[in-house]
């Protein structure tokens, strides 16, 4: 056994156990967190590029699991996010809680299913296997969304199915053209012909739906805003990243041959529009959770905006990986904090949050720290990510992309400081005693992690670029390096 298998299989085992656990969910979760944390540490110590064929079947028959830098960053981040969200959910979906029994019984299997799907999606390189993870994640996500609003969940289900169909069509095309669906094998074989380009377009279209990239984001805000807080945290943190990571695998590794600069620029342009559109929508929201959900639409934009920057000078690949991790952690923190704030507030609207900074200082702190990372202000993981991306954009002369990212940060400040300002208003609110310490601690710990990420930029960037696909500039050189040699030497 290798940690790669276990990271996928263990959550499935916990899923089965959770169906049988009854009143033992707490112990089961503790066991799951300990196991997954240990496996994640093991994963991080592996050499980048370490791969493992499941069950001993060689490629192209078998299924390859691989630990590259992106997976080595994302899987531990999933462990952190899912683990802490689980601790929070214990008090919302406990047998003695006010949640209905059906919800309590349903949440935990779905939770572990989603965990497994996320790990599998980040580790596997098999396009069909990736399809399975997409479906696993979609099933869990739709069911969790249904806990809040069945209507939003149905809409989500229909759109997710549509996305799957497109993706599957593309996979079929690839299989008939190349006889394999393994990304690492495809990387050596793929050609820039029409069939490949069509397959790439079909799969990308399907994946963009899953990743909720503007203008295919319509399903996300209602579903994420209506779901219970821990479910929203997982939906915004984990699920949308799956579609994104598969897109990355296709465009920069498996089908990189067919990924034309024009195509990359189209994706980048859509990403830029997503940033602006999502931010402007977030500014218009009156409900707190809808605001946070639209913020996800905007933040997804950064991930795709980075696409045309990957191959050029700078550290866009590291910036992209950072952004995926920082957004996962910070957004989960923000949804969890928002859940607590809304429970204490008079209503779901932002105006109802008055006085909460005094009533629940730790929770508002968590919200504020997560906001710092999402706005991309220092010191935070979000800042490191945006910094590397803006730096790369400017080095490559993409001034418009740089400007969009900076404006996106300002717009994020506009919508995120609004709930904070309301929370700071009034000063005579009584202090709300926390219901359970771990419920307060979970968002705070996640937000602090997002902040601390900003201090570990150097080592983490090394980790992210380890085993990065060949399309990523291996040793990024500063622009104008021939004219100012001394400067670039200093930098090294």
């Amino acid at each position, binding site marked *: 056994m290798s940690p790669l298998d276990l990271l996928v299989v263990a959550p499935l085992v916990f899923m089965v156990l959770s169906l049988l656990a009854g009143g033992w969910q707490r112990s089961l979760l503790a066991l799951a967190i300990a196991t997954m944390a240990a496996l994640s540490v093991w994963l991080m110590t592996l050499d980048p590029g370490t791969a493992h064929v499941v069950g001993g079947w060689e490629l192209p028959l078998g299924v390859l699991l691989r630990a590259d830098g992106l997976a080595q960053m994302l899987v531990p981040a999933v462990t952190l996010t899912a683990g802490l969200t689980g601790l929070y959910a214990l008090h919302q979906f406990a047998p003695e809680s006010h949640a209905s029994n059906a919800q309590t019984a349903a949440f935990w299997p779905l939770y572990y299913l989603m965990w497994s799907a996320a790990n599998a999606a980040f580790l596997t390189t098999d396009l069909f296997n990736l399809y399975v993870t997409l479906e696993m994640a979609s099933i869990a996500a739709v069911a969790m969304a249904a806990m809040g609003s069945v209507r939003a969940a149905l809409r989500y289900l229909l759109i997710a199915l549509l996305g799957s169909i497109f993706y599957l069509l593309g996979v079929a095309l690839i299989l008939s053209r190349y006889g394999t669906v393994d990304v690492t094998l495809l990387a050596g074989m793929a050609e820039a012909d029409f069939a490949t380009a069509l397959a790439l377009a079909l799969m990308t279209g399907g994946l963009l739906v899953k990743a909720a990239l503007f203008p295919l984001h319509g399903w996300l805000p209602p579903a994420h805003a209506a779901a219970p807080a821990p479910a929203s945290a997982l939906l915004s943190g984990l699920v949308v990243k799956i579609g994104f990571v598969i897109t990355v695998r296709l465009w920069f590794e498996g089908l990189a041959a067919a990924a034309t600069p024009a195509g990359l620029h189209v994706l980048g342009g859509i990403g830029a529009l997503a940033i602006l559109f999502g931010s402007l929508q977030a500014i218009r929201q009156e409900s707190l959770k809808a605001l946070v959900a639209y913020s996800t639409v905007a933040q997804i934009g950064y991930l795709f905006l980075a696409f045309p920057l990957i191959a050029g000078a700078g550290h866009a690949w590291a910036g992209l990986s950072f952004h995926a991790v920082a957004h996962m952690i910070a957004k989960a923190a923000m949804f969890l904090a928002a859940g607590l704030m809304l429970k204490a507030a008079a209503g779901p609207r932002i105006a109802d949050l008055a006085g909460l900074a005094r009533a629940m200082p730790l929770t508002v702190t968590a919200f504020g720290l997560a906001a710092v990372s999402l706005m991309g202000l220092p010191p935070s993981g979000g800042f490191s990510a945006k910094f590397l991306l803006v730096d790369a954009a400017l080095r490559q002369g993409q001034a418009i992309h740089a400007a969009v990212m900076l404006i996106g940060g300002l717009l994020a400040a506009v919508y995120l400081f609004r709930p904070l300002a309301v929370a*700071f208003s009034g000063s005579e609110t009584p202090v709300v005693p926390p219901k359970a310490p771990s419920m307060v601690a979970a968002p705070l710990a996640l937000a602090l992690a997002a902040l601390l990420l900003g201090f570990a930029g150097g080592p983490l960037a090394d980790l992210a670029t380890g085993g990065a696909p060949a399309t990523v500039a291996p040793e990024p050189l500063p622009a104008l390096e021939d004219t100012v040699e*001394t400067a670039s030497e200093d930098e090294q």
Partner: protein
Amino acid sequence: MTAFLPLALLTLPLVAALISFALPDTRAAWRDATNIIFALVKLVLVGFLLLQAQGGVDFEWRYEFLPGHDFVLRVDAIALLFVTLSTFLWLIATIYAIAYFERGPNLARFFGFFNLCVLSATGVAISGTAITFFSFYELLTLATWPLVVHKGDEKSLTAGRVYLTYTLAGSAAFLAGILWLKALVGPLEFAAPPDLSPVPTLTLILIFVLLIGGLGVKAALLPFHGWLPQAMAAPAPVSALLHAVAVVKAGAYGILRVVHDIYGAGTVADLGLGLPLAFLASATILYGSLRAVMQNDIKKRLAYSTVSQVSYIVLGASLAGPIAAVGALVHLVHQGIMKITLFMCAGALANRLHIKAVTELDGAGRLMPVTMASFTIGALGMIGVPPVAGFISKWYLGSGGLEAGDAWVIAVLAGSSLLNSAYFLPLLYRAWLLPPQGDHAPVAELTGGWNRMLVLPAAVTALASLGAGLFASFPFSPLEWVSLIVDAGYLR
């Protein structure tokens, strides 16, 4: 070991902040003690650094926080000047703030952010690269916002919103500027200016505008000064710190760094940028003074006075030549101690006598003689009456203007002094020569712990500004120190 001393300068306020956040209001006495003790310890540390610096030792701490980007803390002579000022004034302002609020609500939060604000100001001072500077500059924005909205009423929230709008937009421009320049010439260390010759002139000018425009927001340069008078909604200790060492000084200090460390005074002059900047600073000086004359609210009048006075520093920085540089640097210190005196006095008057408007000042000199005496010294210094410190600044700025061949500077200074008299002398006249209006009894300023702590800090800084002028030619006076820095080749 000495490499960690710069880090210790930041750790002390950080720990004080965390302790302040953690202690509940029932432990207010502990919190007060912690704050004062940490401020004292930091002062001792700064004293030690000063002695070391006499021996020509520079302290540096370096850490690669992102690939190709070093996070550098460097305590050089000019940084030490700013750090000493901020540490001294932090101690004073802490004592004052404790007495000002006594046992009001939400003080754990207040002192926590107060300390974070000091951390950021210290970080701004000892930043060794443009990126490091930006990080602390932005942190300063975040740490001061909760202080500005501290009261939680509509006026404070509006002020907070305006403050964020201006400063975040400014920092985005600044970040764009440094990343753009960095993409062209490599890392921007605050040591010797990089070789800018490969960069086209127009690009250099554009970047300069971005940088100075971004920093000019916090330095309240025309036309970006609008936030400062509004920020008066904050409590008096916050205004005192904001105007003396924290926010506006960070902007002015940044402009000094850009002109002398990133571009180099020679390049700025060659590009023809020095004179426009000097004109802008002069316009701000006169405009701020004119607006100050029109204000009836004392704090607003002081705020517009800050708009005017901070631009003296910018004026000195933009004129070529060592004498003007001495004037700029020494005014950084002098304006700090004089302005904090004025704000602490205004706060004491509002707190004890509910005097907020100029027209209510009648007879205040009889009711609070010590406070009004301190205020008088500060006001005379601002006007430039010898031997108070402000005179020294104006003398050097004027001589610097003559040396640089810009005799019009004398006219600006004279005009400003005239206007300064026009907005300060009526206050002094009303306070000392008119009879009290209401039936206020004289305040026992020197009996009772709270009263003493409220009144004496201003007296100390008033004496300091008198001393800085009287003993300007003695060793360790701000002027002597600044002259040493400039003689050592800095700011040439």
